């Protein structure tokens, strides 16, 4: 007899496909103009207590404007799929200060770090305080969980996590394969309430194109009950129809389309602009001191009305020209 184990972590979201189907049945599928300001999208589609998915890869192709707006609107008790969340995690944990809880639960694959840039002091303070309920996974596990949800099935079997504490602190379960008798890990479907995805191009209905790696965003958009798209630019529906194979996210998944040029700043946007490493370092340094971090957040987020003003504070078009030159490997001027 093979002994089968279960992870001991909390399962934050219901993996049942019929509950999801009832929701998706009611979703608008017709082509309706969904263009709106970020402020309206966040106020309309992100509710206190919701569980979020953040698109892109931490500091690459992230929906910065929507993440900032969630902070400004002081949303509370949100859940998050921490699927290589780096700068996006840093932004959201900034709402966990002075006893306030923007995040209350996190499925963890990669958090608190900014890869080669080091660890976020504030995100670590928040995570080390124990105030956030967590469940442990891996990047592939969370990608599979989105895929299961996107497929409309309750779980996906895989061969990772087995034998480790990562499994023990997850909400996965070991199962036996009905065909081969092999032990597998069952990864439960994850249907986020709302996801925030930044793309290169979208039409007014939410048909989206992404240039470069898609990370998990094709599945994330399909798995999420509501999707807020921020886009570098809005393109015509004719343009979409001229090359339908380039559409990565179809409009029936999308609830809001917000045009935000340079919207992944200070993150990288493939083919458009590189990440602003100086600003990311400034952010990391500010976090060392709580008072300094408060002032930093006031200056860049709470005291500005929107992302456009933040971009202006960070150097505006001149800064973007510099980051575009870096991204496109243009020769440097002497």
């Amino acid at each position: 007899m093979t002994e089968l184990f279960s992870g001991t972590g909390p399962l934050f979201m219901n993996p049942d496909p019929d509950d999801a189907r009832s929701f998706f049945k009611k979703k608008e599928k017709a082509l309706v103009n969904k263009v709106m300001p970020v402020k309206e999208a966040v106020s309309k589609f992100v509710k206190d207590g919701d569980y979020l998915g953040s698109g892109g890869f931490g500091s690459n192709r992230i929906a910065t404007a929507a993440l900032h707006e969630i902070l400004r609107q002081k949303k509370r008790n949100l859940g998050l799929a921490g699927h290589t969340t780096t700068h996006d995690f840093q932004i959201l944990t900034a709402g966990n200060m002075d006893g306030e809880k923007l995040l209350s639960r996190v499925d963890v694959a990669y958090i608190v770090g900014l890869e080669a840039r080091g660890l976020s002091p504030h995100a670590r303070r928040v995570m080390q305080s124990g105030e956030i309920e967590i469940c442990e996974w891996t990047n592939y596990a969370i990608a599979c969980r989105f895929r299961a949800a996107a497929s409309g099935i309750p779980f996906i079997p895989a061969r990772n996590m087995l034998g480790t504490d990562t499994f023990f602190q997850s909400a996965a379960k070991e199962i036996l394969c009905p065909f081969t008798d092999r032990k597998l890990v069952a990864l439960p479907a994850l249907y986020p309430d709302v996801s925030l995805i930044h793309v290169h191009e979208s039409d007014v209905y939410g048909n989206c194109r992404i240039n470069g790696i898609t990370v998990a965003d094709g599945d994330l958009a399909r798995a999420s009950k509501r999707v807020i798209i921020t886009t570098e630019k809005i393109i015509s529906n004719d343009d979409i129809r001229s090359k339908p194979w380039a559409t990565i996210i179809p409009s029936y998944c999308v609830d809001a389309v917000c045009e935000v040029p340079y919207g992944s700043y200070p993150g990288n946007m493939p083919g458009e602009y590189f990440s602003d490493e100086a600003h990311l370092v400034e952010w990391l340094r500010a976090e060392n001191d709580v008072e300094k971090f408060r002032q930093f957040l006031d200056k860049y987020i709470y005291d500005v009305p929107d992302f456009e003003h933040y971009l202006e504070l960070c150097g505006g078009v001149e800064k973007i020209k510099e980051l575009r030159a870096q991204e496109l490997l243009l020769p440097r001027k002497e």
Partner: protein
Amino acid sequence: MSDYNAIELMICVAARLLEDGSTVGVGTGAPCAAAMLAQRTNAPNLLITFEAGGIAPQLPSMPISVGDSRTFYRGLMATSMSDILETCQRGLVDYTFLGGAQIDAYGNINSTVIGDYHKPKVRFPGSGGANDFASFCWHTLVITQHDIRRFVKKLDFLTTPGYLNGPGAREKAGLPENSGPLKIITDLAVMGFDETTKRMRVESLHSGVTFEKVQENTEFELLKSPEITDTEPPQDEELRILREEVDPFRYVIGR
């Protein structure tokens, strides 16, 4: 022989392990530098993949993130994270390179917490793709500094599987057969794993380092390979390529 620092030595040793025509999943930093160096020396046909979706880029510079645009610059494909890790799960990826806060005698790695899981003394990022890569790739390579707080008897948290608790344990847990850690490259030595016990053993010592010194910096008891050799130091040409082409701004080798 030129002067070189510990990280340059580790990168050169790691690069030589990658055969021409093999496939590797890498992260940023030293692993990426090793793969780039291998591509310019012994393994021009090395296929490099990044977990966020980049396949076979012609890297113009060191990436800052495993998902930044450099990781698919002039690549063969820009795909999804699932596609990359499923390619590993299907058995097409030979090597992966990892690091971590703690490692034990069986090559298991902790990159999650120091202290109690629910109220940790230090919270680290967690698995990211490390558990996936080490579960799926045929061979895991580790590059890390060697000290007694890192090479521990018992991990605070087993994030990523090595040989778990010994021979047969990976297979029993359900992990793909015949996979596991291959080499651990540190600033003191290169270690492999004893075939019968799956415990870490010293295979080569860097210049000026004794077995005793490696043991002093390791909390668990190290085994000895039947023949412990001297680590081949970096060649001038390897150092030139590493310094001029791979990491001219010394992001990794200047640490």
